[in-house]
């Protein structure tokens, strides 16, 4: 029984989908709105604008891959083809590994489905610090509700897999609150391969929801295309230039693509949007583009359980613990959210970070290994100002990110919390993932060791799958790149609609925050564009 990949039939029925690697000659496209990126922001925006009758062109750098590709459930194929830089993206000094999607659907095609509304304390912090308007808990509620309905977001009703079950057990043993994670799935088979692309279309990613919705509305999708520059003329974007990529989706094919539109929407994420604006010499009087990039820095801990955990099977994230997230409100010592990570071997070996006998022994215990991760809530304190996106001589993005003692203290406390929970859940041994850590047989031994580990770059392996900021929103023009409606301050026909507009990290997995703000901002944009007659081009 082959799973319907949705696109084969859609394209046969007239959907306008073009693989730019097949183009032989330079092309010019015209549209009412050109959307750069097809992830959480771009997909949501494309469906809303096309439903409003606007002619939408979606430009996606990555390939179109569907359930027909995902049916192999193969980690090597998935990480190589569905992630930025073949999942090898990192910060400029290699200290932080970056997992970010790059295919039609963006990161939503490969994320782990956790769907949280933006926490009220985060929204309040944005209003207080960045003068964001229209973003209060009450004002945002209907937009979140609309997207939850669109994407089937609901608390996971199936018992957690053993990996998440251990998190629940450990939290409860310590008297810490643990809750069920809402997921964006319909008819989920509980397989656990969300990070490799959902083989059953159950995950309600942009790939199977809003992008098909937009295509049904007549939008055009062009994939294998890398946008190089926006042209800024007289306070407007006058066009964009792009390069078609070859079939491997890595190098340019040589075909040039030009796009002219009434309005442009950047939705390429918190690394690629600032890089595009910097390559384009976009007006930036206060030097804010690419600043305050927040990443929810992640550290991890492994627990060896007496029984099989098989963390590679079952919904990857279904339980979370916020015990240490908001203890001091939005401010104070950095808070962190504790969740689990799926344990297919390729990703596990990347986070394990050992060689020789240690690698063999540790990875050999994979079926018994329980994983916990902590997402540090960066960007809420002056000692945590986030990172900065710059471009190199070729115009490619480079993310610089440094950690202050304030953040190192957070990593140390997160290691402690995770190890304590793992022992409380029945772990025989715990290994905080640190270059100098060992395997510890008791909580007291682990506690002492974690206290004396060195806390600096390249000793604490840090990961991120949540890229936020770099084009902050709000009304304080000295601090922000876009206004509260996500309109770029220095060009009248440019919006930025994705996670890059968040002025801090979220304090929770960001996809539903992106959907909610995209829904609000795209709906307003549709009204504005439809109230102005199309200019003759």
């Amino acid at each position, binding site marked *: 029984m082959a799973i319907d990949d949705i696109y084969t039939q859609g394209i046969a029925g007239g959907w306008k989908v073009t693989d730019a690697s097949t183009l032989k000659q330079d092309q010019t496209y015209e549209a009412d709105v050109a959307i750069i990126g097809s992830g959480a922001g771009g997909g949501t925006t494309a469906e809303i604008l096309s439903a409003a009758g606007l002619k939408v062109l979606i430009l996606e750098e990555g390939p179109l891959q569907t359930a027909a590709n995902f049916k192999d459930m193969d980690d090597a194929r998935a990480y190589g083809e569905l992630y930025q830089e073949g999942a*090898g*993206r990192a910060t400029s000094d290699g200290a932080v590994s970056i997992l970010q999607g790059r295919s039609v659907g963006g990161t939503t095609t490969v994320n782990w489905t956790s769907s949280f509304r933006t926490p009220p304390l985060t929204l309040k912090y944005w209003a207080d610090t960045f003068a964001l308007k229209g973003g209060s808990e009450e004002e945002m509620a209907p937009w979140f509700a609309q997207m939850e309905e669109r994407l089937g977001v609901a608390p996971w009703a199936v018992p957690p897999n053993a990996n998440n079950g251990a998190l629940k057990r450990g939290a409860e043993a310590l008297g810490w609150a643990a809750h069920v994670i809402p997921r964006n799935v319909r008819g989920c088979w509980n397989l656990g391969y969300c990070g490799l692309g959902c083989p*059953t279309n159950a995950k309600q990613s942009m790939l199977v929801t809003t992008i098909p919705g937009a295509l049904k509305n007549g939008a055009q999708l062009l994939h294998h295309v890398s946008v190089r520059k926006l042209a800024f003329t007289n306070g407007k974007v006058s066009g964009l230039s792009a390069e078609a990529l070859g079939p491997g989706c890595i*190098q340019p094919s040589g075909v040039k693509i030009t796009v002219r539109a009434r309005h442009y929407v950047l939705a390429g994420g918190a690394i690629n949007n600032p890089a595009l604006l910097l390559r384009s010499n976009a007006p930036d009087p206060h030097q804010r583009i690419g600043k305050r990039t927040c990443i929810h820095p992640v550290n991890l801990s492994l627990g060896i359980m007496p029984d099989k955990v098989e963390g590679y099977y079952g919904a990857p994230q279904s339980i979370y613990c916020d015990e240490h997230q908001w203890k001091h409100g939005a401010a104070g010592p950095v808070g962190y959210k504790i969740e689990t990570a799926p344990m*297919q071997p390729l990703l596990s070996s990347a986070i394990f970070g050992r*060689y020789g006998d240690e690698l063999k022994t540790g990875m050999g215990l994979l079926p018994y290994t329980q994983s916990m991760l902590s997402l540090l809530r960066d960007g809420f304190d002056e000692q945590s100002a986030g990172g900065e996106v710059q471009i190199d001589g070729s115009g490619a993005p480079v993310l610089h990110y440094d950690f202050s003692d304030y953040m190192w203290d957070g990593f140390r406390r997160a290691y402690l919390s995770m190890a304590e929970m793992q022992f409380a859940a029945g772990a025989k041994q715990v290994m905080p993932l640190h270059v100098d850590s060992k395997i510890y047989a008791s909580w007291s031994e682990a506690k002492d060791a974690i206290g004396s580990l060195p806390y600096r770059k390249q000793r604490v392996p840090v990961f991120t799958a949540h890229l936020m900021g770099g084009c902050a929103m709000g009304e304080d023009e000295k601090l922000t790149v876009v206004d509260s409606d996500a309109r770029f301050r220095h060009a009248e026909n440019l919006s930025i609609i994705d996670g890059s507009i968040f002025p801090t990290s979220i304090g929770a997995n960001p996809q539903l925050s992106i959907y909610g703000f995209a829904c609000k901002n795209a709906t307003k944009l549709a009204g504005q564009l439809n109230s102005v007659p199309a200019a003759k081009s």
Partner: protein
Amino acid sequence: MRNLPTTETESGPNAVDLTRRSLLQVGLFGSLLLGAAGTTATLSGCSSRVESVAAGYKFLRDADLLLMRALIPAVLGPMLPPPGAESEALNAQLMRNIDLGCYRLGHPAQKVVAQLFDLLNLRLTRWPLTGIKAWDEATPAQVQAFLERWRTSSFSVLNAGYRALIKLVSVSFYGTHVGWAAANYPGPPPGPFQVFNS
């Protein structure tokens, strides 16, 4: 120094002439290379010629292949099959995976990896930094001693090199079925897998 591929064509990647100067301008390992270059007028074994990608590869050069051949058994040693056809086939697959992993990196990361490999391949920098005279003569124990030296070094740039090297090799392995077996991973759930692939 090496070519970094910049254009995808039917005949394989074209090359841009990235001179040593531009390669060394910035980057994690560039300063170490520059420091070494400062001690002598030219880097031996790497004057102004542009070394090309090894035949059948997209990123790795011939010198890098020797390095990888030494690195793979040091990182994976206890899990590799005994010398023979099976081991050779796996080795070739791992080299291709490593090559593809480097090829898929963006330009800034490729530059850093190229600098790291150059640092390990140039005699002038290899010996003082790794204690290895030649990769094709090094034993797995000697390579492990070098990895341990870089792991425990107080220079974070060497720690970064250590982490990059072991990650390149281990992810190239645990994405294969031999790697799955070494992790006691049974593979995707067989029932659904059959449903999707029948």
